[in-house]
C-alpha cells in the first residue's frame, strides 16, 4: 500500500438553484478515487453549503495514484426522485507525487458540468502520504518530473540530456460505443473525460518508467496529444526529452534573470564537473536523493566507457576529414564521432527542446520533416465492448490484452516516420534532431501523420556523463567564434545533400554558411541578430475531390509534395521581402478536410549577422514583347523593391556594409578546386564555374507566366505589416527586443468562416484563407492596442476543417509590453557592436570566400515519394521531406563550430535587457489570486522559484440550447473562459500564481445549428509555477536575507 490519499470537502459557494420551489439547493458531495467512494452529509437549503467534512482516506497503489484522477461530484439531494448532479471536479494528483512540487492541493475549484458549464465552486483539500517502495518491478514512476517547457526549466540545470521518450496508448472512444446510443450526452461526455484523464495518467506513468530506465529524473518538452480517430478509437500519444535535472542551488536562484531563458545556466560552471556522480555534482538536493532511492539497486555508475573507446577509433569514418578543411578539421571529426557515438545508442536521437543550454547546440543543418498518409482501420473488438461497463476496464492494460496488435500499428506508423526523419538528418551531416514535434490531421478515415524538427550537431557533453576531456574543451573555446557557430554548415560542402549557396560566415569568416537558414527551434540566445524579427506565414489551400478510402489517400498523397513545395516557396519569398535570411520556430501544419487540404506555415524571420544579405526578388515576364505587360511587370518590380526597402526600415535591418565589398568578388581557392576533383561528383567543377558567372547576388527570380503566378505575387504584397508599436513572432522571445515590462496578456481567439460553395476555386480559397488569417491578426492588433508598444509572442495558429465548407483558425499567443526607448538604445549599440566586429574581422582575415553551388547532384540521396502501395492497411505515401523541396529551388544549411560561454555576456543583447529590466518599475497589481498564463517559458520581470507540476486538462462542453447561449460564438466564448478559469483554479490550489508554457493543444468544435446543438472538446496543458517579481526579490534579498519571500516557496531557494 504505497500511498494514502486524503481528501477533505470544506464548502461550496454560488451553487445553482436546484429546487425551484425554495430557490435553494440541498447539496452533498461524492468523492471517488478508483473504485472507492465517500459521501458527505447533505447540507440542507443553501447555495453556500459548509460541509466541513472529515478526512476521506483512500489507500491506493502509487500506480493508481498516477493513473487515476480524483473525482468529486456535487449533487442535489432529492428525497423522492434520483439525486441530480450539479457538476464535477477532476483533480490530477500527480503534482503531489514528487516531493519538490506541491505538498497540498487546497482551494476553490469550479464545479463543472459538460452541459451547463461552471456551476458554482467547491473548496477542497487534498494530501498524499507516499510510502517509499523499494520494489524494482513496480509499474509506477512516481517522482519523475514532467515539464511542458521546451527548454531546461528555469530553476534547474541539466546534468545530462538523455534524449527522446515516446509512448502511446489506444482505446475505444466512448462516444462511439453502442452504449452511447442509450445514455445521456452528459454520461457520454463524462465517460470520455474520465477515460482521457485515465489514459493520460497511464501514458505519463509509462513515459516516467522509460525515463527511470534511462536513469533520468525528468521529462522536458513533454507534449501529449489526442487523436480522435472516431470509430477506430482514441489515441493518446506523448513525446518528450528525458533529462537528469539538478535543482539550482541558492545563489543562482537569486539572479534576476528571465528574459534570456537560460541566463542561469551561464552562471553554472558547467565544465567544472559535467559528471553527475553522486558525490561530486554540487549540492545534493532532495530531488536527487529521491531519485536515487528509486533505483537503489543500480548505482549511478558511468554509463559506459564507450566514449573513450570511440576516441581511440578516431579514423573510423571519413565523413569529416576531407571537407572540414580548416584548422578545426580533425578536431571536428573527433567531435562529430563523439556525438555520434553518444547518439547512436539511441534509437531516435531526437530532442523536443527548442532552446538549449549554452554550448549544447554546435551546428544546425536545417529543417527535416516527414509526412505519411494512413488509412484508419476499423478495428473493433466485440469482446471489449462487453466489459466497458466496468470502470477498471477503461485501463489500457486491459485493452491491450484484448487487442494487442492495435497500439503496435500506431507505434509502427510513428516509428517509420521517425526513421525517415533520422535519415534526413543524417543526410544533412547531423546526428540529432532538435525542436522535434509530431502532429496528426484526421478527416474521416484518412490520417496525415507529420513530424518535423531541425537537424543538428550537438555537443556530446550533455548527452552522457563525463565524455569530454578538458583539453578538448579548451580547443573548442579557442577555435570557435561566438554568435555564428550554429550557422556553420555541418555537412560536407562537396557532398551536399542538395544544391546550396555557400559563403564564408559574415561573422567569423572562417567557416561556410548557407545563404538562408530554416529551423524549428528558438533563436539561440547568443546568436547575433541585426534588427528585429517578425512573424512570417505561408498560407495555402488546395481543393481535392471527395473520395473514399484509398482513392482519397492517394489524392492526398499526390497533393502533399506540391503543397510543401508551395509553402516553402511562399516562405522564401516572404522572407526575402522582409529582407531577412533565417526562419526560427518554423511550424508547418497540413490539415486535411473532406474536399480540400490546407497548409499553414508560421515562423519568425530574422536577419542573422552571420549569413549573407538576402538578394532581392526579381520578376520576369514570359511575354517580353508586350509593352503594357512589361510596364506592368516593372511596376510590380518597383512595388516589391519598395516593400523590401520599407521592411528593412521597419525591422531596423542595417547590416554593416563593409563586409559586402570584401565578400563581393569571390575568388575560388585553388585548394578547394583540387579537392573538388577528389570528390565523386564530376559535375561539381562546372557548376562552380557557372555559379561564379552568376555573381554573388542571388536575385530570386519569380516568373510570371500565368495568372496563378500573378496571384502569388499579389498575395505577397497583401500582407500588411502590423501597426506601429506592434511586433509579432512565434518564438519565445522576439529577436531584437529585450526590455520587456511586466504586463502580459495571454489570449485565445477562434474564427470559423463558411465558404460559399459557388466560388470554390483554388484562388478563391487561397484568398479567403489569407483574408481570414490577416483579418484575425488585424483584430488582435486592434484589441490589444492599449498595450502598445508591445509584441505578440509565441503566436500559434492552428487550422482545422470541421466540415465541408468551414475553416476554423485558432490562435493562442501572449502580448507583452516593452519599453520602446530602451529598445531603440539597445539596438543601436547592438548594431554598432556588430559593425565593429565586422570591421576588425575584415582586417584580420584575408581569406577569400568561395561560392559554391552544386546544382546537379548525381542522384537524389533519397528516393522521391513512393507511389501508393496496394496494401492499404499500411497505405502510405510519404511526402517528400524538406530536403527534396529544397533540391528543387532553395538553399538552406550550415556547419561550423561551437560558441563559448565567455563571449556571451558581450554579444548577447539579453544581458543588457536583463540589467535594464531590473530597474524597470515594479508591477503594481501583483494581487493575490491573479494567475498569469503564458505560452512562454518565462514571465517577464519575474523569477520562477518553483515548478509545481504539469497541468494537463481535457474538457468537453455540449449544449442543446445553442441559440439561448448566444449562438456558436457565445457558446465557445463561454467555454474557453471556463477552461481558463479551471486552469487558474487548479494552479492556485497547487499554491502557484502562473502557468508557463501553456498550450491549447486541441480545440475541436462541432455544431449543428438546425438541431440547436454544439459540442466542443478542448485540451490544454502547461507548467504550474510560483514566480516572484524581481522587484520583490530584491527587497527580500537586501532587507531580510533569512526570511521567506512568499509562503509557498521553500526557504532554501530564496534565502541566502
Amino acid at each position, binding site marked *: 500500500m504505497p500511498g494514502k490519499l486524503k481528501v477533505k470537502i470544506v464548502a461550496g*459557494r*454560488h451553487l445553482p438553484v436546484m429546487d425551484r420551489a425554495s430557490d435553494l439547493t440541498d447539496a452533498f458531495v461524492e468523492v471517488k478515487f478508483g473504485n472507492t467512494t465517500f459521501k458527505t452529509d447533505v447540507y440542507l437549503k443553501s447555495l453556500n453549503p459548509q460541509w466541513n467534512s472529515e478526512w476521506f482516506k483512500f489507500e491506493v497503489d502509487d500506480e493508481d495514484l498516477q493513473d487515476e484522477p480524483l473525482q468529486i461530484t456535487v449533487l442535489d439531494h432529492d428525497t423522492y426522485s434520483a439525486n441530480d448532479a450539479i457538476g464535477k471536479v477532476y483533480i490530477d494528483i500527480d503534482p503531489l507525487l514528487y516531493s519538490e512540487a506541491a505538498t497540498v492541493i487546497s482551494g*476553490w475549484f*469550479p464545479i463543472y458540468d459538460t452541459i451547463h458549464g*461552471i456551476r458554482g*465552486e467547491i473548496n477542497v483539500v487534498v494530501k498524499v502520504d507516499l510510502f517509499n517502495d523499494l520494489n524494482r518491478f513496480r509499474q509506477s514512476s512516481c517522482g519523475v518530473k514532467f515539464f511542458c517547457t521546451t527548454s531546461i526549466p528555469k530553476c534547474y540545470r541539466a546534468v545530462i540530456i538523455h534524449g527522446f521518450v515516446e509512448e502511446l496508448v489506444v482505446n475505444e472512444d466512448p462516444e462511439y460505443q453502442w452504449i452511447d446510443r442509450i445514455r445521456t450526452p452528459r454520461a457520454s461526455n463524462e465517460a470520455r473525460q474520465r477515460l482521457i484523464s485515465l489514459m493520460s495518467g497511464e501514458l505519463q506513468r509509462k513515459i516516467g518508467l522509460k525515463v527511470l530506465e534511462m536513469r533520468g529524473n525528468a521529462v522536458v518538452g513533454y507534449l501529449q496529444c489526442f487523436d480522435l480517430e472516431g470509430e477506430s478509437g482514441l489515441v493518446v500519444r506523448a513525446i518528450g526529452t528525458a533529462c537528469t535535472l539538478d535543482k539550482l542551488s541558492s545563489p543562482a536562484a537569486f539572479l534576476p534573470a528571465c528574459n534570456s531563458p537560460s541566463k542561469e545556466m551561464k552562471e553554472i560552471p558547467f565544465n567544472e564537473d559535467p559528471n553527475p556522480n553522486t558525490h561530486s555534482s554540487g549540492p545534493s538536493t532532495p530531488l536527487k536523493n529521491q531519485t536515487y532511492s528509486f533505483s537503489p539497486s543500480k548505482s549511478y555508475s558511468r554509463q559506459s566507457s564507450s566514449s573513450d573507446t570511440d576516441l581511440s577509433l578516431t579514423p573510423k569514418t571519413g565523413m569529416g576529414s576531407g571537407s572540414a578543411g580548416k584548422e578545426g578539421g580533425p578536431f571536428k571529426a573527433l567531435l562529430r564521432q563523439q556525438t555520434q557515438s553518444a547518439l547512436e545508442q539511441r534509437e531516435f536521437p531526437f530532442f523536443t527542446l527548442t532552446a538549449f543550454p549554452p554550448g549544447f547546440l554546435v551546428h544546425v543543418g536545417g529543417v527535416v520533416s516527414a509526412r505519411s498518409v494512413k488509412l484508419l482501420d476499423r478495428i473493433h473488438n466485440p469482446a471489449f465492448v462487453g466489459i466497458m461497463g466496468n470502470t477498471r476496464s477503461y485501463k489500457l492494460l486491459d485493452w491491450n490484452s484484448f487487442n494487442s496488435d492495435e497500439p503496435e500499428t500506431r507505434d509502427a506508423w510513428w516509428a517509420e516516420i521517425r526513421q525517415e526523419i533520422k535519415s534526413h538528418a543524417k543526410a544533412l551531416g547531423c546526428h540529432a534532431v532538435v525542436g522535434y514535434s509530431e502532429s496528426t490531421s484526421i478527416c474521416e478515415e484518412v490520417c496525415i501523420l507529420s513530424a518535423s524538427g531541425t537537424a543538428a550537431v550537438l555537443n556530446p557533453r550533455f548527452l552522457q556523463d563525463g565524455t569530454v576531456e578538458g583539453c578538448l574543451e579548451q580547443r573548442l573555446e579557442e577555435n570557435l567564434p561566438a554568435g555564428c557557430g550554429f550557422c556553420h554548415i555541418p555537412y560536407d560542402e562537396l557532398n551536399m545533400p542538395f544544391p546550396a549557396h555557400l559563403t564564408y560566415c559574415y561573422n567569423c569568416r572562417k567557416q561556410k554558411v548557407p545563404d538562408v537558414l530554416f529551423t524549428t527551434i528558438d533563436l539561440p540566445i547568443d546568436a547575433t541578430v541585426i534588427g528585429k524579427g517578425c512573424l512570417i506565414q505561408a498560407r495555402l489551400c488546395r481543393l481535392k475531390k471527395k473520395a473514399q478510402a484509398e482513392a482519397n489517400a492517394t489524392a492526398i498523397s499526390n497533393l502533399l509534395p506540391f503543397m510543401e513545395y508551395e509553402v516553402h516557396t511562399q516562405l522564401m519569398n516572404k522572407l526575402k521581402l522582409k529582407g531577412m535570411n533565417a526562419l526560427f520556430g518554423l511550424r508547418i501544419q497540413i490539415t486535411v478536410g473532406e474536399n480540400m487540404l490546407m497548409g499553414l506555415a508560421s515562423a519568425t524571420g530574422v536577419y542573422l549577422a552571420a549569413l549573407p544579405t538576402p538578394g532581392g526578388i526579381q520578376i520576369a515576364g514570359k511575354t517580353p514583347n508586350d509593352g503594357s505587360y512589361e510596364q506592368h511587370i516593372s511596376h510590380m518590380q518597383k512595388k516589391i523593391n519598395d516593400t523590401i526597402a520599407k521592411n528593412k526600415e521597419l525591422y531596423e535591418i542595417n547590416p554593416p556594409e563593409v563586409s559586402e565589398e570584401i565578400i563581393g568578388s569571390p575568388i575560388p581557392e585553388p585548394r578547394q578546386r583540387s579537392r573538388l576533383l577528389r570528390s565523386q561528383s564530376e559535375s561539381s567543377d562546372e557548376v562552380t564555374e557557372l555559379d561564379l558567372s552568376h555573381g554573388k547576388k542571388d536575385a530570386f527570380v519569380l516568373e510570371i507566366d500565368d495568372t496563378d503566378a500573378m496571384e502569388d505575387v499579389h498575395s505577397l504584397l497583401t500582407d500588411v505589416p502590423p*501597426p506601429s508599436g506592434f511586433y509579432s513572432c512565434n518564438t519565445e522571445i522576439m529577436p531584437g527586443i529585450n526590455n520587456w515590462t511586466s504586463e502580459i*496578456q*495571454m*489570449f*485565445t*481567439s*477562434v*474564427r*470559423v*468562416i*463558411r*465558404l*460559399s460553395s459557388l466560388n470554390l476555386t483554388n484562388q478563391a480559397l487561397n484568398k*479567403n484563407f489569407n*483574408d*481570414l488569417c490577416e*483579418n484575425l491578426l*488585424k*483584430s*488582435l*492588433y*486592434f*484589441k490589444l*492596442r492599449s498595450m502598445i508598444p508591445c509584441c505578440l509572442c509565441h503566436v500559434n495558429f492552428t487550422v482545422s476543417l470541421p466540415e465541408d465548407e*468551414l475553416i*476554423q483558425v485558432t490562435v493562442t499567443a501572449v502580448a507583452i509590453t516593452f519599453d520602446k526607448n530602451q529598445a531603440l538604445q539597445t539596438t543601436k549599440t547592438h548594431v554598432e557592436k556588430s559593425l565593429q566586429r565586422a570591421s576588425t574581422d575584415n582586417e584580420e582575415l584575408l581569406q577569400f570566400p568561395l561560392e559554391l553551388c552544386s546544382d546537379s547532384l548525381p542522384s537524389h540521396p533519397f528516393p522521391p515519394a513512393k507511389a501508393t502501395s496496394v496494401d492499404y492497411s499500411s497505405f502510405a505515401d510519404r511526402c517528400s521531406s524538406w530536403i527534396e523541396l529544397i533540391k528543387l529551388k532553395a538553399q538552406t544549411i550550415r556547419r561550423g563550430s561551437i560558441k563559448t560561454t565567455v563571449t556571451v555576456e558581450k554579444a548577447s543583447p539579453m544581458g543588457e535587457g536583463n540589467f535594464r529590466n531590473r530597474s524597470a518599475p515594479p508591477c503594481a*497589481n501583483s*494581487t493575490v489570486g*491573479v*494567475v*498569469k*498564463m503564458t505560452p512562454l517559458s518565462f514571465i517577464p520581470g519575474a523569477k520562477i522559484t518553483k515548478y509545481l507540476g504539469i497541468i494537463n486538462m481535457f474538457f468537453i462542453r455540449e449544449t442543446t440550447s445553442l441559440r439561448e447561449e*448566444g449562438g*456558436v*460564438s*457565445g457558446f*465557445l*466564448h*463561454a467555454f*474557453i*473562459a*471556463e477552461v*481558463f*478559469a479551471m486552469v*487558474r*483554479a487548479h494552479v492556485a490550489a497547487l499554491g502557484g500564481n502562473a502557468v508557463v508554457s501553456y498550450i491549447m493543444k486541441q480545440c475541436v*468544435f462541432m455544431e449543428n445549428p438546425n438541431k440547436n446543438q454544439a459540442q466542443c472538446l478542448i485540451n490544454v496543458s502547461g507548467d504550474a509555477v510560483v514566480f516572484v517579481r524581481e522587484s520583490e526579490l530584491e527587497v527580500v534579498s537586501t532587507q531580510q536575507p533569512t526570511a521567506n519571500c512568499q509562503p509557498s516557496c521553500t526557504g532554501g531557494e530564496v534565502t541566502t
Partner: protein
Amino acid sequence: MTSELDIFVGNTTLIDEDVYRLWLDGYSVSDAVALRVRSGILEQTGATAAVLQSDTMDHYRTFHMLERLLHAPPKLLHQLIFQIPPSRQALLIERWGYYAFDEAFVREVLGKKLSKGTKKDLDDISTKTGITLKSCRRQFDNFKRVFKVVEEMRGSLVDNIQQHFLLSDRLARDYAAIVFFANNRFETGKKKLQYLSFGDFAFCAELMIQNWTLGAVDSQVDDMDVDLDKEFLQDLKELKMLVADKDLLDLHKSLVCTALRGKLGVFSEMEANFKNLSRGLVNVAAKLTHNKDVRDLFVDLVEKFVEPCRSDHWPLNDVRLFLNQYSASVHSLDGFRHQALWDRYMGTLRGCLLRLYHD
C-alpha cells in the same frame, strides 16, 4: 465567405471603457459600431470597419456574460470565470456605471411602484427622455433589484446597499433615496413638482430616513429605514392644536412677528400670510396618518408653502429666518406639550422646505 464564429478570450478579461458605456447606454451592436466609427477610431488606429464590428460584438458578448455577475456585485469579486483586476471591477460597477443612472430617467420613476406595471411604461419614458429602452430597462431593473434585496433587511439602508452592491457612499445614498421613495410611493410626477431635481428629493429622503423612520428611534427592527414610523405619524395629529386653538395660533404669530420685525424684507407679506402658512404646515403633518396623504407630501408642501412664498417673492434667506423662528417659537408656547414631537417633525420639514424652495 461569412464569419460563423469569431471570438477573443483573454486570460485577463479585456474591457473597453467606451464600448462598455455604449453597451450600458443600450445601443445595439450596429449602432455602437456606427458611433465608434464617428468617434474617429478607425483613423486613429488604422483598423477596418470589419475589425471594429468584430471587436464590438466580442465586447458585447463579454458584457452580456458579465451582466449576470453585475446583478450581485459581491459575486463578481469571488467568481473565477473572468479574471478582472480589482481596480477594474470597481470601475465596472460604479465609476463606469452599471449602477449609474440617468437623472432624467430616475425623475420619471421616482416614487413609482417598481412593478411590472411601471416596467410597461418604460417605452413612454424612453421616448420622452431619449434614453434607449434597453438602458431604461437596466436602470429600472437595478432599482428593483436593490429594492428587493434591502427592503426587508435589518440595519442602515445605506450600509446595506453598500455592502450588497459594492457602491460608493454617494451612489448608495442615492439608491437609498430611490428605495425610500419607491416604498412610500411619494408623488413626484405632478406638474408643479417638475421643477424639482432628483437631488432635491434625495436630500429630503435622507432627512426623512434619518428622522422619521423606525430606524430613527430603534436600530434593531426590520425595514427600519424604509418605512416611516407609523406611531410618529399618528402622534402628528396632536400638532393640530397649534392651528385649531385660536389663542395658541395668535400667540405663535405674535412671537414670530416680534422676533422678525425689521429683519425680514417681506415682513408684511409674512404677517399677512402667517396663519395660512402655519395652517398649511400643521395640516400636512396631521394628514400624514393616511397613506394617500403621505404620498402627496411633496405636492402639499409645494402647494401650501413653497408656492405662496414664491408668489410673494420671498428671498431664500427670509424663508430660512422665518422657518427658524417659526420652529423655535413653539418652545415658548406654554400651552403646547408636544415639543419633542414638533422638533422631530419641523426639524426635518424645515430642511426639506429650504431645499425645495427654489425656482
